[in-house]
């Protein structure tokens, strides 16, 4: 497990000079950052800094105006910025959303089976005839679904409709769904949003277990500083669509530009604990 910074091996994901403009608005400008293999990396920044926009570029929801995004994964180093969403997903990039996007009318297990779509898929005939090979693949997918349910503590919700689950369970189900597709990189969009301090604490442990037990790299957007600073190996700070600082959590915390972005200009009212 990598823990030391800087890493020497090539990163898993590298974002190189990505800009995106919507009409006259430049949402991201020349953003470069990387997610080392096996790392938990965080993107932080004030509201409207472009964090989710960057996620949307990485996962194919938006097409960057310029720049390139490379995934150095199991299929070489494809450039993601020209691929459709589902192709990026098949390369092993999974994500969650700020407001959950579950398949509300399907059960929790079915949500996880959909995520394994690519692994269960056999020919049409095999499924219609329920060949032994097809049944084995289905049983395996169901077993994995249950594995992730118990990992996330959702066994009791297994056969309930996803839309009827309490908010906290929906968030965990969405993480389970992202994991069930066997990704190499999981992008979590504000996983701690709406959680109380104790749940946020549990989330810390959960994210660390994801890396340790499933061996994925994690890129997360977070407002919750407790989450970011305790579990991240690496933090990038976005402000007005630009990376203003990156490094280890400690380095970023000391960076005057970060403090300025979060707390305002130096000559405003000094706040307690405001070092600048």
């Amino acid at each position, binding site marked *: 497990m990598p823990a030391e910074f800087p890493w020497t091996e090539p990163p898993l994901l590298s974002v190189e000079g990505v800009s995106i403009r919507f009409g006259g608005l430049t949402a991201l400008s020349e953003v470069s950052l990387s997610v080392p293999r096996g790392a938990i990396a965080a993107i932080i920044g004030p509201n409207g800094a472009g964090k989710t926009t960057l996620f949307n570029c990485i996962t194919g929801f938006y097409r960057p105006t310029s720049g390139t995004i490379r995934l150095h994964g199991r299929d070489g180093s494809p450039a993601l910025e020209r691929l459709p969403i589902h192709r990026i*997903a*098949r390369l092993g990039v999974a994500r969650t959303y700020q407001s959950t996007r*579950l*398949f509300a009318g399907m059960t929790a297990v079915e949500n996880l089976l959909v995520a394994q779509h690519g692994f269960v898929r056999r020919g049409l005939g095999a499924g219609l005839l*329920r060949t032994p090979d097809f049944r084995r693949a289905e049983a395996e997918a169901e077993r994995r679904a249950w594995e992730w349910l118990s990992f996330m503590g959702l066994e009791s919700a297994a056969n309930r409709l996803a839309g009827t689950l309490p908010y906290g369970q929906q968030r965990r189900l969405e993480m389970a769904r992202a994991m069930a597709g066997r990704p190499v990189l999981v992008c979590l969009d504000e996983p701690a949003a709406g959680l109380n301090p104790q749940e946020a604490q549990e989330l810390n442990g959960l994210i660390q277990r994801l890396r340790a037990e499933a061996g994925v790299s994690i890129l997360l957007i977070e407002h919750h500083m407790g989450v970011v600073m305790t579990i991240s190996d690496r933090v990038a700070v976005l402000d007005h669509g630009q990376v203003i600082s990156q490094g280890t959590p400690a380095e970023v915390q000391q960076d005057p530009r970060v403090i300025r972005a979060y707390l305002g200009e130096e000559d405003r009212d000094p706040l307690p604990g405001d070092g600048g």
Partner: protein
Amino acid sequence: MFDSPRSVTPKFSSAPPLRRFFLRPARAGPPAVLAGALADAALAAVIAAVLFVPILGLVLDRSRLEPHLGRAAAAVAIVFAGRLGLAMAVRTGNWARLTGFAGRAASPARGGWSRGWSALAGRPLIGAGLALAVLGAFPFLPFANNYLLHVMSLTFIYILLAMGLNIVVGLAGLLDLGYVAFYAVGAYGYALLAKYAGVSFWLAIPLTAAIAASAGFLLGFPVLRMHGDYLAIVTLGFGEIIRMLLVNLTPITGGPNGIEAPRPTLAGLAFTASPPPGTRAFHEAFGLEFSPAQRYIFMYLAILVFMLGAVGVFLRLKRMPIGRAWEALKENEVAARALGIDPTTTKLAAFMMGASFAGVGGAFYAGMEGFINPTSFTFIESAMILAIVVLGGMGSVAGVILAAVGVTLLPELFREFGNYRMLVFGLAMVFVMIWRPEGLLRVARRSVERRTDAR
């Protein structure tokens, strides 16, 4: 009647909402009961008057409207009296004693009929086996006549069609208002293949499925990026294009005059009294007396088998990755794509699969009727099949079968009531949608248990 807010009653209580709404027992003394019942009955009478005065009270005599208000008044009086009696019974609490219904609906213990039903529902195989045995034996029962067999065969075709549309609308959530186009493609596909290429019925079945699937591909391709209303409009247009082609390509399709479709045979044995030279008839081969019933029974059983096949395929599809992908795309397209589901191929597959069901249905329809023309493939057919799927419950199997029976069989059976049956039919649809917006039967979701054995 409208005195207390409706929202007080929970949305999913056990009593049917309509009953709760209209017949709410009042807790009050006798004079108030009478006054309340009178007010209730008066309101009912007003509603009845609004309905019956134009319907019964005005008669169009050539170009003049003749008032016949006496008939309307009688109808309104009947409604008033009936409603008054009903309202009094409910308000004095006698309704429950009269019917035993209220107490049963409120208590969790259900009555005999529903208990029997749920016992059956707990053992779907036994229930399905029972239904199969009845359906298979039906043509040989004494009261089965050619007309009844024909109507039931038609119902089976509609079930088959509804299963196909259930894939497109129920599972994939693509609103298709031109589904009848594929039905037409199947029917004409068979008739034309038989006429120009001499293809036999049974060979034509897979061919028409393939042709209809290709038509589904043709329709699906341009409309993949459309959703909801836009998709509905384009599919509607597609349905009309196909029908206009059939009407106007007179040299090929026979135009409005239609085209003959040869009757199916059983391994070359025709169901006619005098077979064409060089072939044998069914009754000759089996040493039977000729009877037209043989053909009806044969078609009934053949369509039954294919209908059951369609139901089976639908059930399997629902439990396959492609079926789950359809549902996922319907539930949340963005999330489905971000899980690696290709929306293009997945939606195309839904269109093609649904269309192939319709193609087979069309071929059977042509073979059963022996003659087809474009009037069988108008928009109202699409609307009917869609109504079956929506009334039955999108994605549900039992509900859709129930709705198909209701929509096709009941109007046939009550034919002697003339056009009133269509009135009742329309009303029934409205009430089902109020009472059960999710359809007659909600989709039963399969429950997946943890596997303890290490397989």
